[in-house]
């Protein structure tokens, strides 16, 4: 279970990385979205998006259903849901 310090650390990360915040918000808002779907809807270059998604996954904010992030469907993790309600 995500502790309060993890939530604060993740919130700080989103606050200091606006591009990551934009991608995270799009994942949280969507009913279901893949890496390619995000690239299309946010008009972000796939290579740049892949790096942002890797960082978000490293921070523990998102989960993916396949290891290849652009081909995967993405969704917020439990920490992502808690952080999302904390920063909104």
């Amino acid at each position, binding site marked *: 279970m995500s502790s309060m310090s993890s939530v604060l650390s993740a919130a700080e990360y989103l606050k200091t990385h606006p591009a990551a915040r934009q991608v995270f918000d799009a994942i949280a808002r969507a009913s279901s979205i893949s890496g390619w779907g995000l*690239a299309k809807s946010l008009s972000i270059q796939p290579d740049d998006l892949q790096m942002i998604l890797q960082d978000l996954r490293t921070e523990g904010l998102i989960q993916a259903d396949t290891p290849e992030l652009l081909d995967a469907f993405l969704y917020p993790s439990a920490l992502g849901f*808690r952080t999302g309600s904390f920063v909104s």
Partner: protein
Amino acid sequence: MRHFACWVMESSSYFGLWAMSLAYLVFDFFPQVKSVAAILTTPAFWILWAVFGFLNAIAFGLITTRDTLPAAAIINAPHLALAAVQFLSTIGVYSVLQSFSLQFAGQRVVDVEKLVASFRAEALEAARARKVALDRGRAGSIEAGLRSIYKNDFQALTEDYTRVMHLAGLKVETIEAQLNAYIQSAGLERELRLTELVMRIPVTDMENARRLLKRRRA
């Protein structure tokens, strides 16, 4: 006979209470999951419902007396009074559980709010994972339909893949290289490359892929 009538009345009260708990939780989860099917097939959601429903039943028991409902004194309709008490009990339980903490000597000794928020987040993650699994299944069935068409129609694959992936920001030269690698491959490698290319179409844009499949089949 009177006992049976009382039992039926009491059972229907608790059934309504559990139904109200379920409706409240589905309403709470829906904006973040956007699929009732995914919510209702998530085991963590059922655990949350069982806990909230049980506490709701206790709260309902505490605010009703043996034979009468306090709300009946102000609402002149028995069923409406029952629904009002069920609603108040449900709202009360959720309000208390989502904000309850007990401090002693400046330390939080009981923090139900944190526990509920953590478990709710775990249940939301599980429900979204379930939604993704359902969407992956839908993408898979579209992919299977498109694959059978593209396997014998490279021109159609080139047109559709280029259009969809170009909109997703993939560079034209990368698209060209991927399609060339597919057409020049053979055997198992060819099958794998075709799977990779076709899979990306519904994954990138499910609605568009559905339309493409319909059009190509026509």
